[in-house]
């Protein structure tokens, strides 16, 4: 049964890729859509990787953009300074970006061992801001003007492959004994320790893995745009990713994917509203949260759901 499910997923992944390929290569897709494919995939990677910390480990962090930025800078610096063919250069850049971010994930994981909830949130927010202000004052990476002249070698195929790798790795981790340990820590740290779950190790692991993919996503972001600047990776960016995770459902990978798609496309589709765009986005955010989290509404939905089940 499990194998069957995997085959279905693989089939879906291939069909979606073929669909993208067809839409882009035949020119059916608008420029707008073609252009949005990579950002959507970047956001999926970010949301899914953040979900590992927020949804599965149950720790609130507001510094995901920080991981993304160090990854982006490390990976893109490598491609700038290196002159290898893209086939060799790109994978190395992604790995360098990922590993650098992972190192920062390890460092930021340390306070997560001691702090919880809102305190951890503010500390991770602080880490993100520290990274940003250091990047701002580092002239060798372009300072506030950003790192320019990155070869634009990120295309939708590369992005798609990376996204699929991210999805496979994270969902496989979640559905393995390691993932169970991470979820056990989320549900009850004391009980987890009492059955021998190595809390320190798994907390660190979740932070490192999550940071790794955020870093890879950052490299992809840079490779796609050709320029990265510190101001992009401020805490608003972290919040943007967090909103995707919360909206998609904590600990729900499919939800993160859908939320990332919707929230990336939504502002673009709202362009016609011009000045009212941000207002509408804010309202949509509030209404969606009220709808998805209000206890009365949640109960109502569950009743509806239960009825359907019963009807079958």
């Amino acid at each position, binding site marked *: 049964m499990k194998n069957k499910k995997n085959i279905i997923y693989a089939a879906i992944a291939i069909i979606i890729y073929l669909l993208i390929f067809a839409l882009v290569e035949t020119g059916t897709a608008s420029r707008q859509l073609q252009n949005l494919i990579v950002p959507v995939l970047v956001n999926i990677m970010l949301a899914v990787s953040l979900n590992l910390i927020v949804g599965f480990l149950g720790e609130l962090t507001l510094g995901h953009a920080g991981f993304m930025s160090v990854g982006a800078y490390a990976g893109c610096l490598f491609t700038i300074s290196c002159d290898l063919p893209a086939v060799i250069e790109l994978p190395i850049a992604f790995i360098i970006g990922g590993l650098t971010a992972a190192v920062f994930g390890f460092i930021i994981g340390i306070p997560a061992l001691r702090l919880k909830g809102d305190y951890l949130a503010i500390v991770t927010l602080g880490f993100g801001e520290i990274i940003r202000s250091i990047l701002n004052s580092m002239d060798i990476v372009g300072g506030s003007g950003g790192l320019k002249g990155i070869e634009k070698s990120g295309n939708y195929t590369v992005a798609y492959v990376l996204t699929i790798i991210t999805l*496979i*790795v994270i969902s*496989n*981790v979640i559905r*393995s*004994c*390691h*993932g*169970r*340990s991470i*979820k*056990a820590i*989320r*549900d*009850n740290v*004391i*009980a*987890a*320790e*009492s*059955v*021998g*779950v*190595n*809390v320190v190790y798994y907390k660190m*692991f979740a932070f490192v893995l999550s940071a790794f993919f955020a870093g890879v996503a950052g490299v992809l972001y840079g490779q796609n745009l050709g320029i990265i600047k510190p101001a992009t990776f401020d805490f608003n960016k972290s919040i943007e990713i967090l909103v995707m995770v919360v909206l998609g459902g904590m*600990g729900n990978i499919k939800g993160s994917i859908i939320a990332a798609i919707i929230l990336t496309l939504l502002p673009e589709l709202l362009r016609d509203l011009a000045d009212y765009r941000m207002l509408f986005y804010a309202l949509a955010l509030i209404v969606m949260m009220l709808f998805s989290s209000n206890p009365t509404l949640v109960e109502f939905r569950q009743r509806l759901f239960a009825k359907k089940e019963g009807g079958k």
Partner: protein
Amino acid sequence: MALVDIKQLGISFGGLRAVDNFNMTLEDGQLYGLIGPNGAGKTTIFNLLTGVYKPTDGEFYFDGELMNGKTPIQINKKGIARTFQNIRLFNNMSVIDNVKVGLQNRHHYSMAAGILRLPKFGKMEKEMTEKAMELLKIFDLDAEAEQLASNLPYGKQRKLEIARALATEPKLLLLDEPAAGMNPNETAELMNTISLIREKFKVSILLIEHDMSLVMGICERIIVLLYGRVIADGLPDEIKNDPKVIVAYLGE
């Protein structure tokens, strides 16, 4: 040699002496009861034995090894597992996954095997599923294996906690009020289950309980705690008739 050897164990919280001069010897395979009025320090002793609290004085030997200062994880690996007074399940995980987390203590595969789905992963997961189902069957939880733990009724949650503790293959099982909130029928059933697992898993048990019928019914020895001190230690019949114990429970 005794499985558990506790010598003059004690802990203070600030000025409060929660447990003082606690001595106990538990032989392999024994079922020991730990009783006492509320606030006597019973759960504190469990916390000391499982490394949640660090004792301020005294020594605790398990299987001949000094356990003072070891972390809960190390202690669990050595073979002590416990349940909690206020149930602590992994609420948002399925019943079977709760047990599997316990099993992982002894059944492990590498990260690479998990991510790349190497043959080892399939083999171990299959083995774990089988073992977990076996355990769940003992506790009559096999029908609910795929349910969320939080959706189980209270009595079954208590059972699941015991199943999870057993999954770590302990030599010593600490049960903190396993019959709390159960009706007499459920309690009777629980007594059977406890006897059964003693037989089947060859595990020693230390048990905190207020339900005297259960304690007197299954415990081989009983230790009585009052204000952090041991006031009696002996066979159920001795305890039943100990004037100090009667005073402690009924007042003078």
